[in-house]
């Protein structure tokens, strides 16, 4: 028998009742009144060590089982009511919590390495190509207005576009477009592609690379188009945000977005490696030597040297140029 605090749910007035457990029946005695409740009529709390536990009564009242009685009686009441504990049992045992922690770390690690990529590849076919088109067309006017001026290489650009688009057809890339522009900021030693297959070459590249080398760069960009890398990245970033939100969510929104941005960059580097491999296939199809791609990386390295160092690998959207050169070692 224990004394317990009882609230009737109609006022904050506390009453002290005597509790006894008679088989599956909880008996409350207060003054002359005696009330009996079957275990399955009660709303039983989850186990938690060391604190009073609230037991909900069918009349809307609550009785707070003192900690020592709760540890003893709650399992019996629960058994009598046929209720199981579920996740609270895991929480109650340190070994189970440590196993859960290891499983949690392993799950996050696996999602990071494999799961997110698998999921993105599975979801990608469900996203219609028209979405890629719409995003590309939507983004282009802003990009052109903010960062681009007309190119100094118009006739050469038109020749390159004709040759490239003809060579690209064997890879069935869908609609393709190539334009050249001068960048308003920075060296413009770059090229990029929009999700709708619009490839943009910047004058900085055309200054330094000959036509075959430009084709190697275009082969790389074509790899992004064929693998739908931009759309993959969008699909992945949504998934990553969701996962980081689960693990870190109630810590901080900043931590969530930082973690998913860094991981997004890592996937970006994988996509670049995939596009590099595609560039080699493209060069072979164009009867050009793979050494052309190495010459491009050598010029990239010289450019990086001139402009003073790249970002450390984990903060970069592209693999380090040194790594790209090592991949092509022995190629001529």
């Amino acid at each position, binding site marked *: 028998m224990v004394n317990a*605090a009882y*609230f*009737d*749910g*109609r*006022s*904050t*007035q*506390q009453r002290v009742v005597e509790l006894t457990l008679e088989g599956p029946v909880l008996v409350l005695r207060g003054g002359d009144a005696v009330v009996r409740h079957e275990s399955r009529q009660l709303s039983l709390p*989850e186990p*938690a060590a060391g*604190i*009073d536990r*609230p037991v909900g009564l069918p009349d809307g*009242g*609550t009785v*707070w089982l003192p900690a020592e009685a709760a540890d003893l009686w709650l399992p019996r009441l629960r058994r009598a009511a046929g209720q199981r504990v579920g*996740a*609270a049992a*895991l*929480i*109650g045992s*340190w070994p*189970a*919590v440590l196993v*859960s*922690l290891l*499983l*949690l770390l392993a*799950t*996050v690690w696996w*999602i990071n390495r494999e799961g997110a990529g698998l999921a993105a590849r599975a979801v990608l076919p469900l996203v219609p190509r028209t979405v890629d088109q*719409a*995003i590309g067309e*939507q983004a282009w006017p802003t990009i052109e207005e903010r960062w681009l001026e007309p190119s100094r290489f118009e006739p050469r650009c038109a020749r390159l576009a004709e040759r490239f688009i003809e060579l690209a057809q064997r890879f069935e890339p869908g609609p393709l477009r190539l334009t050249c522009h001068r960048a308003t900021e920075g060296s413009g030693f770059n090229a990029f592609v929009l999700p709708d297959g619009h490839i943009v070459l910047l004058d900085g590249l055309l200054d330094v690379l000959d036509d075959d080398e430009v084709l190697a760069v275009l082969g790389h960009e074509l790899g992004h188009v064929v693998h739908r890398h931009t759309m993959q990245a969008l699909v992945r970033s*949504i998934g990553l945000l*969701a*996962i980081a939100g*689960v*693990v*870190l969510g*109630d*810590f901080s*929104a*900043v*931590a969530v977005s*930082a973690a998913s941005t860094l991981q997004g960059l890592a996937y970006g580097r994988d996509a670049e490696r995939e596009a590099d491999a595609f560039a080699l296939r493209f060069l072979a199809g164009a009867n050009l030597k793979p050494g052309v791609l190495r010459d491009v990386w050598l010029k990239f390295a010289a450019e990086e*040297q001139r402009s*003073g*160092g*790249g*970002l*450390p690998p984990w*903060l970069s959207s592209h693999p380090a140029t040194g790594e790209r050169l090592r991949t092509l070692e022995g190629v001529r």
Partner: protein
Amino acid sequence: MESPEANSLAHGLEDGALRRELGLLPPVPPPSPLPAAFVQRLVFSGRGSEYFRIWVVGALLTLLSFGIYSAWAKVRKARWFAQHTLLDGDRFDYHGDPLRILAGRVVAVSLLVLWSWGFEFSLWLGLAVLALFCAIGPLLFASAQRFRLANTSWRGLRFGFEVPRAKVYAVCVPLLLLWTAGSVAQAAGIDGALIAAAGLVPLLGLPWAHARLKQMQHGHASFGSERFSLEPSTPEFYGLYAKALVLLLVGGVVAALLGAAVAAIWPSHSRPDGLPDHSALRPWLFAIGSALLLWMMAWPYFAARLQQVVWGRTRCGALWFSGEMRGARLWRLVLLNTTLVLLTAGLYWPFAAVAIARYRVESIAVHSDEPLAEVHASAAPAGERRSAGDGAADFFGLDLGW
């Protein structure tokens, strides 16, 4: 001007609250200086190691169930926090239904996806999403508030939140418009000095809107049949925001000085030994470091002062309250705990959450002329409990302030 709702209008004129807000009466000082015969602080009895176990199991099951378990994990967390909060020796309790929270989360995720993608596709879709926010956002917010309070109890009685729909719109829509003015202007293609103006000028109205929001939250809450009330305090909110702004400026100066010092000892020339030079990292580190520093400088003072202002003006029946959180103390607590979370790659987080929650909870005191055990409240007539929005409000980080 308050919504023309007969009930509150008559009530407001009678006790002078409305007349004070209209400037017809001088503002009254907050009631907290009254000497109280009895002061009870809230007590928090939870320990970080217990919350750690709840957190690990919740996160694992949530990931393995593709997020569905998060509703059950949330109920367990809320119940744990409530049952470890004590007033006058009695524990609070939480009774939320996970299925309703799950429904709220589906709504929240859909809204969030619409909001973050709307302006990407077109200005008109973005504006349509904003209109949708203005139309249903306030109702979701109010229903989340009701869900949270109606599922919290102390001494067997439920809290509650009942607010007329017109008032919810009158309070929330201006806040939403002020908050999103910058993004809308950006999407509409305004640039240069105008975008800065479109982003910054509405911020001047933010303290006013925030004060109205707090007044709605506290003024329409109830415990049993007792109503909470909050004295209007718009000037104090402007003072609060001004102080936070000053701290942000101080943080900015400190960040700039640190940046200059780093630049001086970390020269940008290429290294002669031919090793890779990571000087391109500097702007990144600088941006991340100064954002963290700015947040660290301003947030604890803001949170502490907000609690003082809001709870110092809150009453409920024969009770009144005070918020006694100190900015400097919270600042030290946040600094220590953020450092430990960073050093342990996040594993310290549950301990940090508990340490900060304990301080926030235990800073609230309840004042009364009689012992709290003698002050009795009775249940309100059973009202309906709807709850589509708890998940949504949780997602956008809205809370009652403690």
